[in-house]
Each structure stands twice: as C-alpha cells, then as structure tokens.
C-alpha cells in the first residue's frame, strides 16, 4: 500500500467517524421583535439585505387596515439571541404637510409590500417596494400600487400609472428594476432603467393572452425568468439576453425581439407554475407548481438552459411574493412543507432530490423562510404563528435560527 492510498483510507475513516452528510438542522430558534412596532400584528415576507445588516418585512398591525414594509437593523453580537433595531417604514410618511413633489404617499395609511433589495449604494442600502400613494381603506375596491424607491438621500415613487405595479426585482448591478405592471392592461414585465435617456420604462413582454409576473434575475444579471400565461396555464419563461431586449428602443422591434429571446422553460406543462427563482450559480431555475389554486404545490427545478423539470419535493407551501428559497450554497432549498398534521414544518430539500429534512423549529404554521450566509454562519429567518408551546398564536411573528450542517452516525 503506498502512502497516497493510505492517506485516502485515513480520510475515509475520518469521514465515517464524523457521520454522513444529512442536510441541516435548525438551532437557537427564537423570536425577533423589531423595536417600535406593536406586539399585536402579523409579520410576513422577511428578507435579508445583501450585506446582511438589515432585514425587511411586512407588518400588518392589529389596528391597521393595511400592511406596510419596514426595515430594521439586524444585530448579532455573538450572544445567544440576536436582536433587531427600530422598525423604519420603507415608504416615508407624508406627514402633515402637502407633498409638493407628488413623490410621497399622500397618506400615512399606505400599503407597501414586496420588498426588493438592490445592491448597496454609497453608505447605505437600496430597496424598492410596491406601495400605494393614496390612502387605502378596508375593503377598498381599487388599490393602486406604484413602485417606490428608497436609497440613501433619496425616496421617491418611480412609477405613476393608474394600474398596479408590483414584484420589483433589482438587477444585480442595480441598473434596472424589473417589475410587473398592469400598465398595458393585463400585466407585463417591465424594466425601470435608472439611466435611461428618456422614458425609463421598458416593456419586456407583450403576450396578449395573459399576464407576465414575478420577474427574477439570474445572479449574472443577463437573464430574467418570469411566469407567463400560455394556453390556459402559467409557464416559466426566461429571457436569455434581457439587456439586448432592453436596449432596443423601438417598441415594435422590441416586441418582435421579445418573441425570439423569451424561452418557455416548461413547455407542454399542464400544471400551473408559480414564481421562479434562479439558483445561486445561475444554472437552475426553481419554481412551485400545482394543478389548481388551493391544491398542494410541488417544488421543481429545471436547467436554465432548458430541459425536463424535475420535482424535488412534493407538498410544499408556495411563497406568496417570490420564488423558492435557495440555500446560499445552492445545495437545496428551505421550504415549508404543507402538512396539517405537522402544522407546516420547515424543511431543507436537497437539490439532488433526496427526501426533505424537516427542520425542527418549535414553531407552527411556518412561512416565508429566508436563509442568509453571514460570515461562517447560516441564518434563517421565517414567520410562524407562534411557538408550539406558546398560547399566543394570534399573531404571526418573526423568528430566526441557525442552520447547521447535520451528520448522521
């Protein structure tokens, strides 16, 4: 036996001694309570800022009619429990005075949702939300969302149409903000080009048969995935060269070009596809899919280059605002399994397609898992309807925990 073979055997023995890789387990789960917000209200859609220093979330106060997006600084000093700083509304309140610039919301009772973090700008963070300018009252028949930008030294609405604009997503370089808009009547994917020479709005999809929604960028910023309606069902599409498409100034030619650049990643699929998301390496596109609304959803991945989608988990709870949550390493997903018996547990699902590994969180009716790698640690924030041992289950709370590699002996 030569030395190399001896070393290999040693390494194998060492691995065996540690146990086989079995996914993750969740530790240290505890609630996160932003300062300055009532403890009576529900949280939703927590999102990490790109630098991991802040969290965004939506909060529906007990006495409020509308939900609002907030941010709060995230502090983890190495103690047992991190904490959040003061809650800061993303949309600047109008205050008592009239907004002379028509760039603020005209009321304090706005609705804001779908926080999209952009690349950091200067000394601060850049983010966009879909928000209302007008006061929104309970049961209002018509709510108009516009896109609102918040960055250091700048807060303003970007869009002004009377139709809804939603699902903002920054391109990785921050040059574009992709979003869905009802500007043309049925929902199309648009770009807001921050450095446009003239009109910053660039329509990317033109299909008359149905809406195109939930744009999602690939990490390289060259491709854009979205959900498009085709033949009575929703498919996942990808535009392979979105910058080329955006660079075409003539709308007619752009319309023509869009047909050649947009690819159906789920051709022939009968099931409805929900919001897509690119894997961190840009090779895969993941999406939830189900037969009908209200039925169980499955999580699929498909090669971004095209191919047959592969189901990685059955019976998952789809996201409301965005596509499936990849782990930062891209080795799988953190999902919520739809289980009435287990009250929707969190689970890690390997990309390879192995069985989901439930993440014991001590919480119930979980939702919105959002992992983030900070330093050497892998954090997870999510919302839940309280701990299993808690009697207070009325309000959906924010929780956090650490995902640690799990090995079986």
């Amino acid at each position: 036996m030569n030395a190399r073979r001896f070393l290999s055997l040693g390494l194998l023995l060492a691995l065996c001694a540690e146990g086989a890789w079995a996914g993750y387990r969740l530790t240290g789960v505890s609630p996160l309570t932003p300062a300055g917000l009532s403890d009576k209200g529900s949280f939703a859609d927590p999102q990490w800022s790109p630098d991991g220093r802040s969290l965004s979330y939506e909060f529906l106060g007990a006495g409020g009619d509308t939900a609002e997006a907030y941010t709060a600084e995230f502090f983890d000093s190495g103690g047992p429990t991190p904490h959040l700083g003061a809650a800061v509304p993303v949309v600047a309140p109008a205050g008592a005075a009239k907004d002379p610039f028509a760039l603020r919301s005209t009321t304090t009772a706005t609705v804001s949702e779908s926080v999209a973090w952009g690349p950091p700008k200067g000394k601060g963070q850049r983010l966009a939300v879909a928000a209302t300018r007008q006061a929104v009252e309970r049961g209002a028949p018509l709510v108009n969302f516009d896109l609102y930008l918040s960055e250091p030294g700048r807060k303003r609405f970007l869009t002004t149409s009377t139709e809804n604009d939603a699902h903002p997503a920054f391109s990785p370089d921050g040059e574009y903000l992709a979003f869905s808009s009802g500007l043309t009547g049925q929902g199309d994917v648009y770009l807001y080009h921050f450095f446009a020479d003239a009109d910053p709005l660039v329509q990317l999809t033109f299909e008359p048969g149905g809406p195109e929604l939930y744009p999602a960028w690939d990490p390289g910023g060259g491709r854009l995935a979205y959900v498009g309606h085709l033949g009575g069902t929703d498919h996942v599409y990808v535009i392979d060269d979105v910058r080329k498409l955006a660079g075409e100034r003539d709308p007619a030619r752009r319309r023509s070009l869009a047909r050649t650049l947009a690819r159906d990643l789920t051709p022939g699929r009968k099931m409805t596809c929900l919001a897509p998301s690119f894997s961190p390496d840009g090779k895969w596109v993941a999406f939830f899919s189900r037969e009908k609304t209200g039925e169980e959803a499955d999580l699929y991945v498909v090669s971004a280059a095209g191919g047959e989608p592969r189901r990685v988990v059955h019976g998952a709870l789809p996201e409301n605002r965005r596509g499936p949550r990849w782990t930062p390493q891209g080795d799988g997903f953190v999902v919520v399994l739809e289980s009435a018996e287990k009250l929707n547990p969190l689970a890690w699902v390997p990309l390879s397609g192995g069985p989901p590994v439930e993440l014991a969180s001590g919480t119930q009716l979980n939702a919105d898992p959002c992992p983030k790698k900070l330093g050497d640690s892998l954090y997870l924030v999510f919302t839940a309807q309280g701990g299993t041992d808690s009697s207070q289950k009325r309000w959906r709370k924010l929780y956090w925990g650490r995902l640690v590699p799990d090995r079986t002996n």
Partner: protein
Amino acid sequence: MGRPLKTFFSRLFLVFAALLSLGGRGLAAGYDSLVEQGGFYLERGPAYGADAVRALEAALAAEPSRASADARVLSALARAYALVSRYTESAWMLDAWKESGGWNAEGEALRTRLLTESGLARLRLVSAAPLEPLTLALKTAADTRLDLAARKAFDRLTELLGRTRSLEPGGLTFLVPEGRFELSCSGPGLFSPRAPVAVELTAGEENVLRLIPFIPARESWKVVFANRSVALSWPGNDGSVYELTRETRGKSDVVYRGRETQAGDEAPAAGETASYTLKTFDAAGEWLAASSLVVEGRSPVSRLSAAAALETDLRVAVTWELGEGSVDRVRVVRRRGLQEETLAEVHDPARLQRGALRDGPLWPEGDSVALSYRVEAWLEDAGSASASGTAKVELPRRVAYVTDVVQSIERGAVVVQWETFPKEGAAQGYRVYVQKGDGLEGELVARVEDPFAREYVYDVEDPMKASGWHHFVVPYVGDRVFLDFRTLTVRGKPPEESFERRLARGAKLPNVALFWDPCEDAVAYEVAVAGRKEVLVTKPYVEFEGLQSPLLGASHTVTVTAVTATGTRVELLKQELAYRHYPRPARKEQK
C-alpha cells in the same frame, strides 16, 4: 385627437380658467395678479411648473423688495422651482422664506424633502471674503452616470451655474445629483481652486468646499529691494497667521510663518523670477485666504558713478554710487601710468551700493603724477563688470627744496614760514631746525607732518633771545630730504692768504675747504657734491660756501676725480660731508 393637440387644448383651457380665476384683472396686472397666476399654475401640478415659475419670477421682478418678504411668493417659488427640477433655487427660496418669517410645516417638509429625499447632495461653497464675480461650472466625472431625474436636475443646475454670481462669506449651497464631478471655479478674486476640483457627492449629505479668495490684493503688497534681498510686506489682520512660500525653478520653500506682516528673503537673480504665495490662516489653522506675487530678479547694475579727491594728507578719497540693480562686489583699481593695482574688493552689502575708500598716502615724486581710479560693479560668475566708473586725481610735484624761510616772533611764539619750489609742491613733511648762534650745531625743532605745510609756530621761553635764531626747513619724504643746493658754492681758487689773515682782516671764511694731493697727470679736477653740484678746478683745492642748509639732516658725498689731458678720469677722493663737519666741531678741539 392626438396627444400633443390634446395637451395644447388642455393647456388653453387652463389658461382660460386662470384668467377667469383672476376675476378679470388680466394678465397684465401687477404683483398680486402674478402671484395668483403662479399659485393657480402651481395647483395644476408638474406639467404647469414652468408656467408657475414664469409668473412668480415676474412677480419677483416687478416688486423685488415686496416679494422677498412675501411668504406666499417665496413658498410658491420654492415649490414651482422644485417642479421644474430647479432644486437649488428651490432651496434658496426656502432659505429666503425661512428668513423672512412665516415659516411653517410645509416649508419644513419641503426642505426635508429637498435635502434628504430628493437624491441630491449639497455642495456648499464657502469663502472667508466675498467673491464677485464668480463663475462656476460642473462636469460629471467619466464614471458618473445620472439617471433621468438626476440629469434633468443637473441640466437645470448647469444653467444656474452658468450665471455669474457672488459668493458671500455666509456661503452658497447647490443641490447636485449624487455622483462624482469636476467643479471649475473662476473669478478675478479667486485664488484657489484654479484647476477643476474633483468632488464626490453623496445624496442627502453635505460636502463643503472652501474657496480661497485672493487676499490681499497684489497692489497692497509692498516690495522693497535691497541689493540682493527683498523685503515683502502686506496688510494683515489681528490673529491671523501667515505663511509665505517662495517658488523658484519649480522648488518651493517656506520663507516665513508667523503673525508678522512682513518678511525678508533673498532676491531672485537677474533674469529669474520668484513666485511668492502668502497663505492666511485663522487662529484655528483654517486656511482663509491667499495671495501671490511674482518678483522679478533685478538686472545687474548698469550705472556707476565714481569720484576721487586728493586730501591734504596726500591720500586719495575714492567714492562711488551704483544705480538700481544687482551687484555682488565692487572692485576698485588704481591706474598709474600703465600700471594697474587692485586696491579693494568690496563684498560688504552695506558698502556695495554706496561706498568709499582712501588710498595712500601717496608720496609725491619729482613730477606730478596722474592717477585714475576705476570702480567696477561685478556679479559673481560674470565674465565682465556690469558697470564701471573712473575718477582721476593728480598727485602734485614733490617739493624740490625750500626757497625762503622767514621767521618772526609773534605773541611770544616763533613763527617760521617758508616757501617751496615748486610753490604748490608737496612733501611728506618738513623738518624745522633752529641754529641758535653762528657756528652752533642746528637743533631739530619739529617734524611737521603736513605735505602742504608752509608755516610752523612754536613757543619759546625767551622770545627776545629767539629773535636772533636762525631757522632752516628741510622737506622730506621717508628717509629722503630735499635740500636747496643753490646756496652751495664751490670755488676752486686756492687762497692767497691764510685763514688767520683772512679772519684778521675780517674776510669771511668758507664753510669747508678741501684740498688733496695733486695728481701728476691731472689737468683738472672734477669735484661733485652729492651728485648735485659739480665744479671743475685746476688746483687741488676747493672751498665750499652755503653748506649749512644742504648739510642739515643729511650727509653728502664729495667726490674728487682727476681728469687727465687725454680725458681719462680717475677718482681720487670720496669724502662724506655731514653736519658734524660744520660748523667744524673739531675747531673747538683745536682750541
């Protein structure tokens, strides 16, 4: 209906509505109408922002003083400017509004919006003193991209910056989109920055750029040149600290740092310049102002005047005066005939521009001597003198001898006066002898150290007795004396009777009689006294008369040479005659 046409009619309707709202007062009405118009357009939203600005600016122009105190106008203008992306002017209007009174929550909201939420940064220019006129220009850096709103704001700002303005010490704030820019500032009163300045602006933050006024003005500097130095002074303020820097040939040196308002420095060389920069700081070290001045090195001295005068002590006073210019040394050369001699090289700065020296004493010679003094101004390393001047003096003839000596008694003192040949001649001095009796040895009374002396007075105890004394005056130069040989007579005829008989009959005896053994082949004898007096005698005998004066203070060689019939000359005798031979001291011994 096409969109543009639609807009046109929409606007027409609004103008009409505006007219109605003014209650028939008409557009041509005054201030109040214009303000109302502005308010009306303002209510219509951003599309009418330009109309609102136009109307409100017209109101401002119509009654500036009233408008500047009218919160209605100022607030409306602030909003109108903001609607047309003229954010800086909007902020200025807010400031004016705040100062004029009537400030309210709406103003505060406007201000907050502008300063912290509009995506604009504040570029604040400050100066310690007013700068007017000041022209500014802003250019985006190559790596700065402006979005649509920022470009619009930047275009409006560029128009604003293009107008000449003044910068008061309170400062001026411009609202600039976020990014990196090059700011160019120009104006006659501006010292710095002269080159474009790179500024990086972050939205919502303030960036302060201090402009340095050109103070003090160049005209207020005082520059005083010495030969190779320069003294600079400037008007100052209490508490200020100054730093004076000189730059020559690309090298920069701090010449002075302190609270004084003056400093001295080496002057630049001819043909060179020195650029002085004066920076003024306050007590805390903040750079407040600066000024600069270029000092040109002065040309070499081109004019030089020289003068020379012979003084009574036979010294020559040489003086010179240089014109404007630089000089490193002065050289004084004396020329005597063909011979030149450098008398001095003057480097002392105190003596360069105007100086003097004394040459001598210069003892006279047989003839008068022309002397010229050339004074030259030199720069070091120069190949030739940059300027020169020449002055001449004539050294008088030396006194050949004293011709007449007159003595008198005046007020108890002996007054000895004498004449010389030549009359205006000079000597180093004059020895005055007195002979207090016939046949007595003369005594030296004084050495009169005055080249041109013609009189000597001295006191005596017995003037009556002194009246019988006999005085001799012998001019001298160094060890040499100059005697009057005219009184010396040499007679070669042997006496026919003895001295005794001559005395007996009262005849005068010669001073000295000299006789020698005859030479067989001699047909004559040549007798010479001190080379000055010669006589040819046939007998070996001569008598000397008038030896008193020539022998005073000196000795003379008497030479007797035999001259044969063939002309051969043979020296027979050489005898030193000195005063001691007269009045024959041996005679007393003979007694």
